[in-house]
């Protein structure tokens, strides 16, 4: 049962990561690519690590995996925000829809 759940979590995590990477290639400009990268940084990481957690069981390894997950969830958005802010300061113009400006 746990193995099955673990399979599901790991595979769906991989799916998220793959789609995130595809989005990284497909999206037209920097800011939209950040949204795509966010998929892998949040849901992809959460699912893969949750799958590993199920395999680890209630050991100290679980605590380390929780630590990794928290670390990724804290630093991911911070790095993304810093990047966006730096790009705007550096003169990057986001691609915007015409009728929404």
């Amino acid at each position: 049962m746990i193995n099955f759940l673990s399979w599901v979590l790991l595979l769906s995590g991989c799916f998220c990561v793959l789609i995130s990477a595809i989005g990284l290639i497909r999206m037209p400009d920097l800011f939209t690519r950040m949204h795509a990268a966010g998929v892998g940084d949040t849901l992809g990481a959460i699912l893969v690590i949750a799958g590993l957690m199920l395999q680890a069981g209630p050991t100290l390894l679980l605590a380390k995996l929780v630590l990794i997950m928290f670390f990724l969830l804290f630093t991911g958005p911070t790095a993304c925000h810093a990047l966006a802010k730096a790009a705007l300061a550096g003169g990057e113009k986001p691609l915007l829809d015409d009728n929404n400006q």
Partner: protein
Amino acid sequence: MTHHFILRVITKLLIPLILLFALYVQFHGDFGPGGGFQAGVIIAAALVLYALVFGLNTASAVIKEWVLLVLIPLGVLIYAGVGVASLLLGGNYLDYNVLAHDPVHGQHLGILLVELGVGMTVAAVLTTIFFAFAGRGHRDANGNLLPHSALSDEIRNRKDGQP
């Protein structure tokens, strides 16, 4: 980047954790991967993050340059001192077995001390390299860091000078 308060808050949150992890790696070298070198690198990474976010002047006010310059040779001295101590106690150079009455305890003690020396030196050397690199062009003739206001003015002028 102090104006950048997301980065500031997250950094304040993370630095103690990073240092704790570094010391965990330092002291668990004989149970898993890790040891002095890796721990030194992680400590240096935490200090570099501090300097990046809060500025070089703040960082060098917290971590004085002379402390770093003392730690570098101190680490090497500890390493060599353990070797010489084992020579004096009748073993080979860095032969840990003779350091305590029981060879296993001797091994533990010797590895702990040697790793401590390595960690100190690596952390201090990497931090010094970063401080020297980041302080390039912002020191007066005597090699002291320029005060904060002068530094900001200089960079502002330089940025304005560029198109």
